[in-house]
C-alpha cells in the first residue's frame, strides 16, 4: 500500500519535472498553436473569395456540357450517314462516312437493308427504322406503339406515336435523338439517319485507297509480295506514301510538326546551355573578381528570364515570321537566363579546394577552372539541361500554339474547325506520348550520365 503511494508520488514528481524542463513541448505557446488554424482559415477565405471573383457558379451555369458531350463523341467515334433524297429517289439510301460525298460505301453495311419495296435501317439498341411508300415507321424498344411520319409530300407530318422527350417536331422538320449514338432527321427534301460507331475510321489509309480495309496480315503479305500495286514504286514504299498522304489524318504533316516541336525544344535548350556556361563563369563571385561585370551579367540573366517566353516569342514571331525558328529563339533567350542563374549559383557553391590543388601545381587560371572547377559542375550542368529539355518540349507546344508552328499550331488549327475532334484527340495523344517519352529519356540519361559516374 505504501509502496504504491510512494510510486505515485515519484511519478507525479517526475511528471512535474518533465513539464518544467520541456515546457514548450507539452504546452505549445499560443502563437504557435494559433498559426495552423489561422493559416487554414486564411487559405479557405482566399479560395472562397476567388470562387466568387472568378464567378464559378455563373460559369458552370453557362457551361456547354451538351456541346462537350457532342465534341467528345466526335473525338472517339465516327458517324455514318444514311440519306435518302426525294429528288434522287432512284439512288435509294446513300450510305456515306460523315456525309462526305467522296466517302460513299459502295456496298451498304449490314444494318441497312434495301429492297425494291422497303428499306430497313437497324439502329442497335435504339430500335429500327422502316421506310416504304413515303411513310417512315420508327420502332423504339421503350415504346409499344411505333412512331410514323408521312414524308415526301412537302413538310414531314407526325402521324402517330407517343410523346417522347427526345423527339422534336417543328414546322419544317422532325428531329429525333433517342440516344447519343443515333439521330433521325426528316425534312421536306430528305430522310436522313446518322449512326455513331466507336473508333477512328480510315486512320491508316484514305477511304478510296486500295489499301483501305485490309487487315494487318494482308498488309504484311502485300509488303513482301513481288506483285506491285503501283508499278513505279515498291509496295512498302507505296504503303508508306499512302499512310503519309492520308487526306483526313495528315500523318505526314503531323509527324513533321512533331519533329519541329522537338527541334525547337532540343536546339533551344542546347544553344541556351552553351551560351549560358561561359556567362555563368563571368557571373560567379569566386571566379570573376570584377563586381561590375558580375552584376551586369546577372541583371542580364534576370532580364532574359523576366521577359517571359510568351513575350520573347511575340517579338521573334514579328521578326522572323511564323515558324519554329522564332520558337527556338524564344526558348533559348529565356533559358539562357535560367541556366545562367542556375550555373552561376552552382559554380559559387563548388568546392574551392580542388581548384586550389590544381593551382598549386602551377596551372594557369584557365587550367585551374578547367580541371579544378568544371568537373564539379558538369554533372549539374548536364542534369539541368536534360531536365529543361523535357520541360521545353511542353513549352514548345505552348509557344507553337501562339504562332511558332509545330504540333501546337496544328492542335489549335484542328480545334478551331470544331469538327475534326478525332484529329484533336489524336494530336493530344501524340503530344502526351512525346512529353512522357522525353521525360523518361531525360530521366534515364540523367541517371546514366550522373549517377553512373560515381
Amino acid at each position, binding site marked *: 500500500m505504501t509502496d504504491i503511494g510512494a510510486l505515485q508520488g515519484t511519478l507525479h514528481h517526475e511528471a512535474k519535472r518533465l513539464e518544467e524542463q520541456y515546457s514548450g513541448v507539452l504546452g505549445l505557446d499560443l502563437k504557435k498553436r494559433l498559426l495552423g488554424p489561422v493559416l487554414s482559415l486564411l487559405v479557405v477565405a482566399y479560395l472562397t473569395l476567388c470562387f466568387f471573383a*472568378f464567378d464559378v457558379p455563373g460559369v458552370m451555369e453557362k457551361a456547354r456540357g451538351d456541346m462537350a458531350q457532342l465534341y467528345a463523341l466526335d473525338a472517339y467515334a465516327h458517324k455514318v450517314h444514311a440519306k435518302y433524297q426525294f429528288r434522287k429517289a432512284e439512288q435509294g439510301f446513300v450510305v456515306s462516312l460523315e456525309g462526305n460525298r467522296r466517302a460513299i460505301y459502295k456496298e451498304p453495311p449490314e444494318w441497312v437493308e434495301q429492297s425494291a419495296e422497303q428499306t430497313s435501317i437497324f439502329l442497335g439498341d435504339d430500335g429500327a427504322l422502316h421506310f416504304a411508300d413515303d411513310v417512315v415507321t420508327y420502332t423504339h424498344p421503350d415504346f409499344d406503339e411505333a412512331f410514323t411520319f408521312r414524308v415526301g409530300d412537302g413538310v414531314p407530318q407526325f402521324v402517330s406515336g407517343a410523346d417522347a422527350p427526345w423527339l422534336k417536331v417543328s414546322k419544317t422538320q422532325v428531329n429525333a435523338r433517342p440516344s447519343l449514338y443515333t439521330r433521325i432527321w426528316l425534312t421536306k427534301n430528305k430522310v436522313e439517319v446518322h449512326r455513331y460507331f466507336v473508333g477512328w475510321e480510315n486512320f491508316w489509309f484514305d477511304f478510296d485507297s486500295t489499301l483501305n480495309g485490309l487487315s494487318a496480315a494482308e498488309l504484311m503479305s502485300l509488303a513482301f509480295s513481288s506483285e506491285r500495286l503501283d508499278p513505279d514504286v515498291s509496295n512498302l514504299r507505296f504503303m508508306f506514301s499512302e499512310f503519309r498522304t492520308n487526306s483526313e489524318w495528315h500523318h505526314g504533316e503531323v509527324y513533321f510538326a512533331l519533329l519541329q516541336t522537338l527541334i525547337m525544344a*532540343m536546339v533551344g535548350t542546347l544553344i541556351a546551355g552553351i551560351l549560358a556556361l561561359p556567362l555563368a563563369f563571368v557571373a560567379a563571385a569566386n571566379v570573376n573578381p570584377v563586381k561590375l561585370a558580375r552584376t551586369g551579367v546577372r541583371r542580364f540573366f534576370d532580364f532574359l528570364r523576366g521577359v517571359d517566353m510568351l513575350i520573347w516569342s511575340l517579338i521573334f514571331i514579328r521578326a522572323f515570321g511564323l515558324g519554329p525558328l522564332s520558337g527556338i529563339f524564344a526558348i533559348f533567350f529565356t533559358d539562357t537566363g535560367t541556366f545562367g542563374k542556375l550555373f552561376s549559383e552552382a559554380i559559387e557553391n563548388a568546392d574551392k579546394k580542388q581548384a586550389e590543388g590544381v593551382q598549386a601545381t602551377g596551372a594557369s587560371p584557365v587550367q585551374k577552372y578547367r580541371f579544378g572547377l568544371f568537373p564539379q559542375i558538369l554533372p549539374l550542368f548536364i542534369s539541368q539541361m536534360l531536365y529543361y529539355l523535357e520541360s521545353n518540349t511542353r513549352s514548345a507546344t505552348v509557344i507553337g500554339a501562339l504562332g511558332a508552328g509545330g504540333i501546337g499550331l496544328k492542335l489549335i488549327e484542328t480545334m478551331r474547325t470544331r469538327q475534326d475532334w478525332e484529329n484533336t484527340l489524336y494530336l493530344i495523344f501524340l503530344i502526351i506520348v512525346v512529353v512522357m517519352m522525353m521525360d523518361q529519356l531525360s530521366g534515364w540519361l540523367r541517371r546514366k550520365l550522373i549517377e553512373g559516374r560515381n
Partner: protein
Amino acid sequence: MKALTLSLLEDVDVAAHLALAEASRLAEISQAYERVARRRTLYTLSLLGLCVLCIFGGLFVAGQANSGGFWAGLYKFFDYPAELFIGAYEEGVPGLFALVLQYFPYLVETINIALVSTLLAFFLGGALSFVASRNLVSNRLVVAVMRRVMDIFRAFPEIVIALLLVLIFGPSPVAAAIAVTTHTIGALAKQFSEVNENCDLKAAEGIRSVGGNWMEQIRFGILPQVLPNFLSYTLLRLEVNVRASAILGFVGAGGLGAELKMVVDWNYGADILVIIFMLVLSITSIDYLSGWIRQKLIGQTGQV
C-alpha cells in the same frame, strides 16, 4: 680492392637495369594513360560534334519551315520593340499611368489564377505524393498506379486543357485555373514524392510503435520533416504558374494575357509595352520574393 670495384660496378649495373625497367614501366603507364585520354577526348569531341550537328541541322530545318528568313529577321529584330517604345513615348507619362491603372485588375486576375492553382495543387499534389512514395506505401501496385496518374497529369501541357475548357466554359479564368492546377498537381506530386522518399522514417516508426495509424504517422511523423521542402517547391511553382496563366490568357482564358492578345492584334504600342512591363515586373518581384522566403525556409537556394 679489385673485388670491391667489381662489386661496385656490378651494383651500378643492377641499378641501371632497375632504372631501365622502371622507365619502361612508366612509359607503359603513360601510354595507357594517353590511350584513355585519347579515347575520352574522342568521346567528348564526338558528343560535341553531335550537339553541333543537332543545332545546325535543327536550325536549318526550322529555317526552312519558317515563313520569314533569319537574316532578314535579324535586321528587323529591333523594329518591333522600337515601334512599341515610340507608341509609349507618344502616349506620354500621364497616359501610361492611366494604362497601368486600366490593366491592373487584369494583372490581379492573372496572379489570382496562379495563386489559386498553386494552392489547390499544393494540397492535392501533397496528398497524391504520400500515396506515391515507395517508402510510405508498402503496396507496390498502388504506388505504380499513382505514379502513372502523376505522370499523365504532368504530361498534359496546360494549353491543351485550357483550349478545351475555353470551348466549354467560354472565355473565363476558371478554364485557366483548372488547366494550371492539373499540370501543377502532377509536377508538384513528383517533386514532393522525391522529398518523401528521402525523409527519415524513424519518426513515423515511433508514431506507429505507440499505436498511430497510417494517417497519424504521415501527419506527425513525416509532414513536419517534409513541409519546408514542400513549401519551397510550391513557391518555385508559383512563379512558373504566373507565367503559365499569362500565356493561357493568350488563348482566351482571361487575365492579362487576354488583354495582351487583344492589344497585340490591334497593334497598340503603348498598351503592349505597359502590359509587358507589368508582367515582367510582377514575375521578377515574385521571383525575388519566393527566393527570399525559400532561403528563410530551407536556409539555401533550392535547386529546381
